[in-house]
């Protein structure tokens, strides 16, 4: 019964379909929605913490992929090179999970690897290449 964090990205045509509902019903998985941004006509993004039996988890993920949902790899991890970071805040504009946060008073940017879902959006965005992908 391991809980795994995944980021799902889906096109606007999938938004109206009951995909997440089927995860519960057909695969007996439970989940917490950590974050969801869905706007009409745009790509949707959802961060789920899924728990359930390992076999069902795999099948559930396979089902999502077949349905056209992009499921982001969680075998990798993101590290931050604090020496390279120059505290610009560019990464705060793309992080969907809350792993990168900013103190609005000092504008200080912090990274919490626990909350990272390895979507890798910050990696290309970071001008100093402080955010890096590593294999776990």
């Amino acid at each position, binding site marked *: 019964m391991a809980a795994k964090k995944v980021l799902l990205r889906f096109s606007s045509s999938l938004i109206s379909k009951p995909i997440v509902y089927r995860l519960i019903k057909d695969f007996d998985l439970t989940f917490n929605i950590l974050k969801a941004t869905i706007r009409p006509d745009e790509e949707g993004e959802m961060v789920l913490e899924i728990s359930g039996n390992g076999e069902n988890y795999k099948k559930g993920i396979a089902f999502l992929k077949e349905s056209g949902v992009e499921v982001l790899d969680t075998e990798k991890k993101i590290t931050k090179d604090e020496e390279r970071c*120059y*505290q610009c805040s560019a990464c705060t504009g*793309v992080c969907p999970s809350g792993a990168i946060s900013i103190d*609005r008073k000092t*504008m200080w940017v912090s990274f919490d690897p626990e909350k990272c879902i390895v979507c890798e959006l910050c990696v*290309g965005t970071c001008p100093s290449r402080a955010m890096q992908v590593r294999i776990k």
Partner: protein
Amino acid sequence: MTEEMKVKKTYAEINAKIKKGEAVVVTAEEMIDIVDKEGAVGAAKKVDVVTTGTYGPMCSSGAFLNFGHCKPKMKVQKAWLNDVSAYAGLAAVDLYIGVTEIPEDDPANKVYPGKFLYGGGHVIEDLVAGKDVRMKALSYGTDCYPRRELESLINLEGLNECYLFNPRNAYQNYNCAVNLSTKMIYTYMGGLRPKAGNANYCSAGQLSPLLNDPYYRTIGVGTRIFIGGGVGYVVAPGTQHNPSVKRGENGVVRAPAGTIATYGDLRGMHTRYIKGISMQGYGTTLALGIGVPIPILNEEMAQATGVSDEQIVTQIVDYGVDYPQGIAKSYGEVNYKELKSGKIMIDGKEVKTASLSSYPMAVEIAETLKDWILKGDFLLGEPQDLLPSADSGVSFKPLKERM
């Protein structure tokens, strides 16, 4: 200056106080409260110097270097530093390496958006770090300079001179960039999602040097500055210096305006304040820290340095269609307090903001410069010429293409 000033100080008086360790120095952030509480005249009496800071991408930057003569001698015609082309159309062993130059074999945007992992800015960072850089050079050979090929490692210690000479730095204000087209774009202002999916800005706002001296009353040729962690100078108005843009009642420019050309010896710099960086899909550049001290010669300068984020506005500009097509259009004004809050409203829609310029590092630079001045290590450089101001008639001309 039309009115007679109540407070009058000279550079010599302030420098004498700095030498005696008696000068009152505060950062531009600290000055806001002082002017608020004591008024401009009170603040001008109390404070001698206000320090500013900025740290962000500065594309119009590069370094001159002289690597010393080899035997037999060579007049270098083409040169590369870690495969990045350097300009050699100067005397025999002088080179200029620009920060946006990329290696000859870089895939650039062939795999879109390009990563641009290494370029001229990174070469300069490597030199500052004391690392060896591989130099390759070619020439046609002359009677006095017969050598035609050269390959050697070089580093900062072995070079004769190596200094930044930047045609345009420290922009006074900058656009807030959005993308109103329907596809994702990658710009020097970062990645911009379609239909105003995000907004990027790039200024230290209330700490930014030229925003604290809106009419360039004290910043000019010869102003001594913090640059890349070392000491340097303002050497000229920067390229595209445009003092004629619209201003608020407080004199602060409402769009990108003034710029400075700067000089600074790489020896004495630190990689904490000078870094090669990569803008995805755009290219390489340099993140550079600059700090300028502003002498409080009178109450006008006290008032100017008391400016806060709320009182500085900029324009929302579309980089999807307008900017590349040279269409000057604004989609509204926002102030830096709003930009720093993390979201702004555009056309009734909430849009997330992020900065490419570092506010925490701007604070650190202003604080460092303050410490240097308080210790008596850093004296003010009195400018020999000021930058062209709002009444100069200088403005920024587009190219008229002709054959």
